């Protein structure tokens, strides 16, 4: 019997109550993350990846309702915990790095204060030990002259430096799981690579599990071991990274891969997926992807597919793609 996963989520849904009615942003997803594993969650804007991560962290506002059959972390039931019990885990065993480093740090407090705050609350450090630990953390995330940076305010640092500070805060208490929600999206391309390398290095050194949320397939290919492709709040495909990149099974995954510039060499136009992710009011009947799918049949337009077993994983499609690379040489 395999060891129990670190994070085990079964049938998670998140509903938001708006004036227009109830909107299901995440619709019955399963997600498991093993100790030390790197899982990539990919999808377009509005696919529910950020909401999923906020639900895991317990950070959804009062208008977001979390429903799940099971939500366990390290064998403990997250759903049964009181808010104060949950806070003991949040920021300590499960930590998060956000998309916008420039606005994610409090502008009124120094970098040092914001790092030390976490250490004080969760580890009870104080005085010299606290300060030394903060300096050590800044060093580990590659911030030069860490001692002098303790008294800097976020507006005095660049976006990349701020993201390093955010990462330092997140890893301060040696979390077992780090959730990184598009950690490089707001940064310059050169800095993106540095931040990704930093995350991967820290993950390896510390053996922590990492959920990397992104809309960049290239990032996933480089870092993740397993990929979860999300579409309109559901899991479209979930498989090991090698298998998925070699032979995607869901047409959506295939189309995403085709849209990678490095895979479209020699073509006159970069392939794209027509249309947008369905929003609140316009979820189609049948398969949620059918209006944008080149392979959709009448069955796809009426019946909603379940997650079927495919090689080494699952795909939500009646007609999973065959091994041949999709779309190669075809004209859309």
């Amino acid at each position, binding site marked *: 019997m395999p060891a129990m996963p670190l994070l085990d989520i079964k049938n998670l849904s998140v509903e938001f109550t708006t004036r227009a009615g109830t909107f299901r942003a995440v619709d019955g997803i399963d997600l498991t993350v093993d100790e030390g594993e790197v899982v990539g969650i990919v999808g377009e804007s509005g696919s529910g990846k950020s909401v999923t991560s906020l639900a895991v*962290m317990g*950070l959804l506002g009062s208008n977001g309702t979390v429903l799940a059959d099971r939500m366990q972390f390290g064998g403990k039931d997250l759903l049964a915990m009181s*808010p*104060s019990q949950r*806070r*003991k*885990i*949040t*920021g*300590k065993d499960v*930590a*998060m790095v*956000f998309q*916008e480093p420039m*606005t*994610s*740090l*409090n*502008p*009124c*407090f120094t970098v040092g204060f914001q790092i030390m*705050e*976490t250490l004080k*609350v*969760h580890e009870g450090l104080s005085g010299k030990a606290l300060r030394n630990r903060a300096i050590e953390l800044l060093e580990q995330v590659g911030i030069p002259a860490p001692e002098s940076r303790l008294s800097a*305010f976020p*507006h*005095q640092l660049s976006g990349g430096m701020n993201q390093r500070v*955010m990462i330092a*805060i997140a890893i301060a208490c040696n979390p077992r799981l780090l959730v990184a929600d598009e950690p490089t999206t707001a940064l310059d391309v050169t800095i993106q690579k540095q931040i990704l390398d930093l995350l991967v290095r820290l993950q390896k050194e510390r053996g922590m599990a990492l959920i990397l949320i992104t809309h960049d397939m290239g990032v996933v290919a480089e870092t993740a071991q397993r990929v979860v492709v999300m579409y309109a709040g559901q899991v479209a495909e979930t498989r090991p990274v090698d298998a998925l990149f070699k032979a995607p099974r869901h047409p959506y995954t295939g189309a995403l891969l085709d849209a990678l510039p490095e895979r479209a060499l020699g073509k006159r136009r970069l392939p794209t997926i027509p249309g947008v992710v369905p929003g609140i009011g316009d979820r189609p009947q049948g398969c949620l992807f059918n209006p944008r799918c080149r392979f959709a049949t009448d069955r796809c337009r009426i019946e909603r597919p379940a997650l079927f077993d495919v090689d080494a994983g699952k795909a939500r499609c009646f007609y999973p793609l065959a091994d041949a690379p999709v779309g190669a040489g075809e004209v859309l």
Partner: protein
Amino acid sequence: MLRFILTRVSLVIPTFLGVTFLTFLLIRLVPGDPIEVRVGERGIPPERLLELRHELGLDRPLWQQFLDYIAGVLQGDLGVSLVTRNSVLSEFLTLFPATLELAALAMLFATVVGLPAGIVAAVRRGSVFDHGVMGVSLTGYSMPIFWWGLLLILFFSVGLGWTPVSGRLDLLYYVEPVTGFMLVDTLMAGEYGAFWSALHHLVLPMIVLGTVPLAVVARMTRSAMLEVLGEDYIRTAKAKGLAGKRVIGLHALRNALIPVVTVIGLQVGTLLGGAILTETIFSWPGVGKWLIESINRRDYPALQGGVLLIATTVMAVNLLVDVLYGVLNPRIRHSR
């Protein structure tokens, strides 16, 4: 920082000129000059009136009088009261502590009540408490001060007899003025009975004067908190596993305070203006009441000097608030 303060101080000069000119002109537009008002219905022989006018310099052209006045002000001479013959500055300084004591307590009242009310209203947005606070503060803001004062006097002083109707201190007590602040002076003299009496006298005027600032502070705190609570760094604070009290009371409030402090500073003008009405209603022996009396007596120098000094106070406080703003907001501090 020094340059910033110097720039601000230089901006004060046109304001000074404007205030002086307007007061000078407006009080002279009111019918009746100081002498006519003093003699009243008794009448005065025309020759004697001309003589007195000449003596006070009131027979010269207005522009000459104005230039003379400005020349005096520039040398620090605000003139003497036409009624008491005392220096305007010394009269003002004698009465100002009473106004300051009242205004400071009113501001304290507004902040101590308004800040927490605004915070709780923002955190429980849409709740009964939120609607209650916003409703009450709108009422408070819209209510005429003099009417509100009379209502409170009627209810608490006349009806229930809990507080005195007017004045600063019961006639039973006499306390040598040292600082001019009654609460401080009574304590320094060791007269605890007098201290209680002074406190009793202060409560109603403090509430009346503090009502408008209270409403403003509560509303501003609420809206600033609502804005801040939606910021990314609040989510970060929650993601660190901090308790709700710390997220709201430290991470959110620290940022929300920046606009609130500005508003509190701007309320000082409202407060000193409101003091004129409040002091008149409660017979509070401060500069507000003194100004009203000066208008009635057409005591030109007293009125002009008083308004100028109050304007100076307001400008000084606003300058202080700007400096404080920089202290509270690191982004401003470093760009100066």
